[in-house]
């Protein structure tokens, strides 16, 4: 507990409660101690790692910051290895709108990762960005296949082309970044965190491009790609999960967590919970969401503070530790993170190490 100045209740009190309190008091105290212990562990790991990952200035010798993109044409087939190039790096715009949208969107996403987080592409080692458009016949989807970001044209009924929304392109590229960092297992809560991280950075790419503050941004994912068979404004709302379209069943808090075996255990459904937590952090801190809220989330990824099977609670604890590492234990950022995870019900009030701490 030494060094954890953010806690207003003396930790030895928790230890005493854990030993001598009622059953309920003991459980609450043990939870608090466990959270505090994991925060300290993660903070120690972060401290060891922050040196090499700390903001590297653009232009550092050996660092590039030069994007390389190739956009392939799947020619309406389910071919993940299409070889026909529609637009390569530096070439003039194609006559094909989807190819240009993919090229530009991957460029905007690269620029975000480089300028904001000093990350040089998906692998932080100048990996080429491979996009593929016109995948499948009336294909209502976009995905990351482990090598390429692949976009369908949509059926025209549910969806129109998936390259039209920058946050969709940022979302797919971010799946690659997650795979190269904390590699969250694509199932249940760890899968929902994987999805949420893609929504978070997809939205940040767009906000950075548009110069929008947390307050100005829409926090919508999949804006402008809904067809006439979908009634709503987007596919997901990070600000108000469950309100983006007529069939949006995303929960906004743990009390409404959806247990399902579909969609790898509801990875695109329960992502609403960590999505809202991020929105709440960004909105409490204010200003540009990519500057502090985004950096806290990225710190968890790049410092590999969590394991692939990480659950919401562990991730929440890791963001608290990352915020403390970056901004100090008594910072407004730590308080924003603690409050957000409390609001969505991932950390209960008794588990919040900073719930009673007032920065002075």
């Amino acid at each position: 507990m030494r060094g954890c100045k953010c806690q207003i209740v003396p930790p030895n009190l928790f230890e005493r409660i854990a030993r001598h309190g009622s059953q309920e008091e003991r459980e609450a105290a043990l939870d608090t101690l466990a959270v505090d212990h994991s925060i300290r562990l993660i903070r120690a790991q972060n401290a060891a790692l922050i040196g090499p990952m700390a903001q590297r200035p653009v232009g550092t010798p050996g660092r590039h910051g030069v994007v390389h993109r190739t956009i392939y044409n799947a020619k309406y087939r389910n071919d993940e290895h299409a070889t026909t190039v529609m637009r390569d790096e530096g070439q003039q715009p194609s006559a094909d709108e989807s190819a240009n949208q993919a090229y530009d969107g991957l460029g905007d996403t690269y620029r975000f990762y480089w300028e904001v987080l000093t990350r040089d592409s998906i692998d932080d080692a100048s990996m080429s960005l491979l996009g593929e458009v016109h995948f499948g016949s009336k294909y209502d989807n976009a995905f990351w296949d482990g090598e390429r970001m692949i976009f369908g044209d949509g059926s025209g009924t549910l969806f129109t082309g998936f390259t039209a929304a920058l946050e969709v392109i940022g979302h797919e590229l971010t799946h690659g970044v997650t795979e190269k960092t904390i590699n969250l297992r694509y199932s249940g809560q760890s899968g929902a965190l994987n999805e949420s991280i893609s929504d978070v950075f997809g939205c940040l790419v767009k906000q950075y491009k548009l110069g929008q503050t947390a307050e100005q941004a829409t926090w919508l994912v999949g804006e402008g790609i809904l067809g006439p068979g979908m009634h709503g404004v987007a596919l997901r709302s990070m600000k108000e999960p469950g309100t983006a379209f007529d069939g949006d069943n995303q929960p906004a808090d743990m009390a409404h967590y959806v247990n399902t075996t579909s969609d790898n255990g509801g990875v695109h459904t329960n992502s609403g919970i960590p999505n809202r937590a991020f929105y709440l952090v960004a909105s409490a801190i204010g200003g540009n969401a990519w500057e502090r809220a985004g950096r806290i989330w990225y710190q968890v990824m790049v410092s590999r503070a969590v394991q692939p099977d990480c659950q919401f609670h562990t991730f929440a604890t890791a963001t608290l530790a990352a915020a403390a590492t970056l901004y100090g234990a008594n910072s407004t950022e730590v308080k924003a993170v603690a409050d957000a995870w409390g609001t969505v019900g991932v950390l209960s009030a008794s588990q919040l190490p900073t719930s009673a701490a007032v920065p002075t």
Partner: protein
Amino acid sequence: MSEAVSSDRLTIERSGGFAGLTMHTSVPLADLRPGERAAVEECFHHPSTPPSGADRFVYRFRVGGREAVVREERLPGAIQPLLDRLAGSWTR
């Protein structure tokens, strides 16, 4: 899944994808072409596999009391004509 699982129809659920929409359709077994029937049968003997990449569709096939969950990237090629034929029939 509100629709009763009958033994003379193939019901298909498609979940996942970027949108995370869960869609349903079904087809009488009698309407399956021989190659498609074999492909569906192959699905029931498919070993379960972990997802590769992200945002892929996941298919769940049901006939009678049998159920198979197959990831889009692992579908037998012979089932594609059936899925193409059913493309306009998915409902939420």
